[in-house]
């Protein structure tokens, strides 16, 4: 076990835990209230092995290496790949230096990213949008032409818009780890690198749709939802069905009684709880296919939660309880 201090919060974690995981444990233990000291991530995904280490948005400063060797680490480190040591002291949001460095990282991520949020289906639930907003980067200093690509159809349901890709490798890892064959990969190098299916081979695996959920930006989008609605006009509901291929537990995004989109349920960190199959995701677009449980809780401070539907639902529950009590009397 190792004792770590992150932004003044103490926690004891098993050896081999990364700084990022420790920070998330602190936030989890404190509940939804309190400040979010967990570093943002664009490429790290706890459900995918060997993810992380590419985007550098999770950088933190280690002010004390460990109890035995208290020297600070000379440069900011990627918290998703750095394991904790006993007595380690880390600063994230309390350090202006870290925030400044992260701002630089965000600026680099945005260099080739088009600012087409008004068109992009990911807008409203995009992690890069949040990151850009949090760091106040409305302007770009980049004068040169941004790289552009033609849109590629990956199979009948997924659209790849490489122009928006930030090279996080998450989708490649999904394709590697969730499916039996490797179809998807990175081709070319450096600035010219791009995600591709080999020889434009269509992904026809049952779980290929999960690449949409792991994509932190709008590079991989659902063709059945393309331009149907902005996400903040839809209402997410937890729903389930008996599926032979997957757990069948999903979030459906409703507009009226119409199911516009089906996604996997995501946790507080924007990560999928359980992977869902393509049949659930793309083919069950009727409200009668699903058993609706309750409105999805959206924890992130997001425009999606501006609908107030959740509090309204709980209000109705309260009124129902009160009425029952009155009837008893």
């Amino acid at each position, binding site marked *: 076990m190792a004792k770590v201090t992150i932004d003044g919060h103490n926690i004891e974690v098993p050896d081999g835990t990364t700084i990022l995981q420790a920070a998330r444990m602190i936030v989890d233990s404190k509940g939804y209230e309190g400040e979010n000291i967990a570093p943002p991530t664009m490429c790290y995904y706890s459900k995918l092995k060997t993810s992380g280490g590419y985007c550098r948005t999770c950088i933190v400063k280690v002010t004390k290496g460990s109890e035995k060797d208290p020297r600070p680490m000379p440069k900011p480190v990627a918290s998703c790949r750095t394991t904790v040591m006993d007595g380690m002291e880390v600063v994230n949001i309390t350090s202006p230096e870290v925030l400044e460095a992260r701002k630089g990282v965000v600026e680099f991520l945005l260099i080739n990213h*088009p*600012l*087409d*949020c*008004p*068109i992009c289906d990911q*807008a409203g639930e995009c992690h890069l949008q949040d990151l850009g907003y949090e760091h106040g980067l*409305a*302007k*770009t*200093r*980049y*004068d040169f032409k*941004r790289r*552009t690509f033609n849109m590629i159809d990956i199979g009948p349901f997924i659209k790849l818009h490489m*122009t928006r890709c930030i090279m996080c490798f998450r989708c490649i890892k999904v394709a590697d780890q969730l499916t039996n064959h490797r179809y998807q990969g990175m081709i070319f190098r450096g600035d010219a690198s791009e995600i591709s299916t080999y020889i434009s081979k269509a992904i026809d695996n049952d779980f290929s749709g999960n690449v949409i959920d792991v994509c932190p930006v709008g590079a991989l989008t659902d063709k059945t939802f*393309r*331009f*149907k*609605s*902005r996400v*903040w*006009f839809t209402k997410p509901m937890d729903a389930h069905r008996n599926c032979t291929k997957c757990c069948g537990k999903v979030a459906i995004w409703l507009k009226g009684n119409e199911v516009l989109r089906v996604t996997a349920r995501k946790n507080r960190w924007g990560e999928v709880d359980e992977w869902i199959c393509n049949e659930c995701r793309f083919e069950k677009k009727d409200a009668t296919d699903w058993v609706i449980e309750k409105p999805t809780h959206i924890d992130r401070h997001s*425009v999606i939660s*501006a609908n107030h539907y959740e509090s309204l639902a709980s209000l109705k529950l309260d009124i129902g309880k009160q009425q029952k009590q009155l009837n008893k009397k």
Partner: protein
Amino acid sequence: MTLVEKLYLPAIFSGMLITFKHFFKKKVTIQYPEQTREFSKIYRGQHVLKRDEAGAERCTACGLCAVACPAEAITMIAAEREPGEEHLYREEKYAAKYEINMLRCIYCGDCEEACPKEAIFLTDRKVDSLYTRGELVYGKDILVEPVDKRVDVTKRETSKVAEFKAHKEFAHNKTFDKK
């Protein structure tokens, strides 16, 4: 009452004097349909959906006006631009249906402020008085400016907008996929 007050005549004459003075004052009424009053520079009347210089619709159905609208007067349905429609719509997505309920609208101008594409503006035109509610839900046929009859909104462009236009490094001020 005193004797002077009882006479009534002085009061009548002083009242008539006030009335008489108004004959020589400037008239406050105007003959409305023929004459119109000067509008304020920032008068907020009927909306217009602007086209760009080439005549393509600027609106990309991003939904920010609808989410900014305090009266929830704006609804829209987006559609994807087909190849060959580049001269009609500026971006790859456009508003297939765009409706403003003029009875709900409170003319606050928040939609104008929220618009990232400089597509919607409030103009100094007045909204017609009509007989049914349905007629007052304005669709794209009324809101989009005709190509040959542009609506001038230069007065409404604030210094902020002018500044924004001057800096072309704002990438979202350009079109992306003109191929």
